[in-house]
């Protein structure tokens, strides 16, 4: 496994972003389970304890509600905490603090207090971690006014979105898909830095639009490549920010291609894919040449065996098949 100096991993990109944040602002600190001595459950924060010390790279007990709430309080107290929750499933233990406090304090106080808190967490399936470590619940957080929700799907976004989240005066939840951590790309440069709340085209095309976010993006790009070999020119829109949604970009793409497949690792019922579909119906109904199609996870808790886990998740072939049907080529 020779290290390629011309590429960095998603994991390293997040680490660089954390390092830059900790270096540039003394108010920033990282807190969470095993972020310090262990180096992060997914090795994201490895080495940061040595550089910044125990005060600023702070190991916490297994008290999700306690330390996420402490993050809210520290943000109220003038700090810029970055709280890492090991996985989205564990974040359910902190839902009270995120939904009842972080998202509401500005509103309940009549605008007197902002909560400049960043919460990072791993999400998604693919590592055979079964039904309590693998879910995609981004949609739950995207439902809540007062929160902003990010899903960096590329190494460049992993590198630059954290700083944007820290600049934001309100609570921002960042989802890092577990299957992205080992992805490699050339080191991003400043010009790769996109605005926080804008969707972006990862591939331009004329025949149909594939809308996705987070861990599904590599699969969608792979599907788009296969589709091009079948003569279908697919556009790929990466949402990047799940709240607020960039409806302008969604509608603009639909207006160009008139056909849409939404790929979402969340369960179909009550999904972001459903929300996006409704937005398209409301705002771009007359642009559509065919009904919107959704490719989502099957509605079961994520199973342990690899073949069953993969059967749950949206796969490139599912996306290709859905797109071909939509284009009338299946």
């Amino acid at each position, binding site marked *: 496994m020779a290290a390629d100096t011309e590429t960095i991993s998603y994991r390293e990109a997040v680490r660089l972003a954390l390092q830059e944040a900790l270096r540039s602002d003394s108010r920033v600190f990282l807190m969470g389970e095993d972020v310090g001595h262990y180096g992060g459950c997914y090795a994201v924060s490895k080495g940061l304890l040595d550089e910044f010390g125990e*005060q600023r790279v702070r190991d916490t007990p297994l008290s999700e509600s*306690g330390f996420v709430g*402490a993050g809210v309080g520290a943000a*109220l*107290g*003038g700090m810029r*905490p970055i709280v890492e929750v090991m996985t989205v499933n564990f974040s359910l233990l902190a839902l009270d603090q995120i939904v009842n*406090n972080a998202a509401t304090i500005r509103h309940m106080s009549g605008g007197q207090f902002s909560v400049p808190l960043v919460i990072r967490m791993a999400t998604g399936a693919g590592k055979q971690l079964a039904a309590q470590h693998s879910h995609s619940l981004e949609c739950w957080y995207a439902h809540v006014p007062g929160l902003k929700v990010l899903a960096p799907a590329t190494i460049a976004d992993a590198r630059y979105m954290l700083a944007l989240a820290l600049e934001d005066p309100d609570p921002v939840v960042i989802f890092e898909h577990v299957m992205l951590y080992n992805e490699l790309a050339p080191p991003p440069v400043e010009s790769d830095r996109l605005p926080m709340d804008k969707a972006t085209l990862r591939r331009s095309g004329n025949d149909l639009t594939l809308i996705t976010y987070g861990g599904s993006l590599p699969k969608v790009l792979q599907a788009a490549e296969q589709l091009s070999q079948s003569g279908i020119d697919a556009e790929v829109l990466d949402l990047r920010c799940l709240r607020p949604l960039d409806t302008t970009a969604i509608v603009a793409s639909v207006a160009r291609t008139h056909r849409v497949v939404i790929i979402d690792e969340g369960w179909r019922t009550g999904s972001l894919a459903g929300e996006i579909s409704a937005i398209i119906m409301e705002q771009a109904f007359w642009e559509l040449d065919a009904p919107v199609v959704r490719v989502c996870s099957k509605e079961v808790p994520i199973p342990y065996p690899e073949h069953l886990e993969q059967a749950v998740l949206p796969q490139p072939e599912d996306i290709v098949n859905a797109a071909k049907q939509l284009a009338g080529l299946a």
Partner: protein
Amino acid sequence: MTQPDKPHINRSHLIKLLQEMIRIRRFEERCAELYTQQKIRGFLHLYIGEEAIAVGCNQALEPEDALLCTYREHGHALARGLSMAAVMAEMYGKQSGCSGGRGGSMHLFDNSKRFYGGNAIVAGGLPLAVGLALADKMQQRNRITACFFGEGAAAEGEFHESLNLAALWKLPVLFICENNLYAMGTALSLSESEQDIYRKAEGYKIPSLAVDGMNVVAVEEAARNACTSIRTAGGPFFLECRTYRFRAHSMFDSQLYRDKAEIETWREKGPIVQLTNWLRDYHQLQDPELAEIEQVVEDEVEAAVVTAENADFEKVATLTRDVYTGGSS
């Protein structure tokens, strides 16, 4: 700072404490009336009977210290110095309220007083207190965060997580448990295996103490000692104040879970009657002076009501303001 601060047991200070408690009592009695007139809606949780805790503890806190409270926080807000007019306007949901009308009775906030709200999730404020204290410690500010909660909070996980964090990180948090014996309608004996709440703090190596929460002087002394301990030793302190709620949990509560005799027994040792009788016994308070205090308070309450009545409601056009900072979306 090394010597425990003594409470100021002189006449003028005791009169001040009495007046503060009467102020809270009369404000809330008026709120109850206004509730029956449907001027105040939603939930209304009265602090009547428990005033000695907010008043006593506030004597020990400095302007730069922070406070977090529960949904039963009218008394703490008034004791902290939020204007009665702003609190009453908030009860009405008016724009001039201390939370712009958005919070209501359960969510009083005031940035200028470092008053971080009434929190309506039991134990939900404790982690915030830990975080505020952590921010102070990391920024080397010598401030205390005072966190009030009921004994019902002791059953919540956030209570234990917060005590552990505050002790582990040696944070300047004053935990104040207002033990009024009932979590809504469930008696302490039906919900806790260890009913001496302060003893739970011992498990986290937090110095702790139980005090008569009906005696404002005792509460003040305990709070001053607690604050001295926090400011000198650096870690948290846990104060359990034993008290009793004279009125229903909220205006919807028919109080089937306790008998009237019990309430009467507690009323006889209420914080206001206790201090009034003590002052009278020692010839420190004459009827005309008490009448004058009552009059001053009544005038303030009525002025607050008039202000709230005349204040404007927020226009619906600005409904989505303050969801995010600096705009609507």
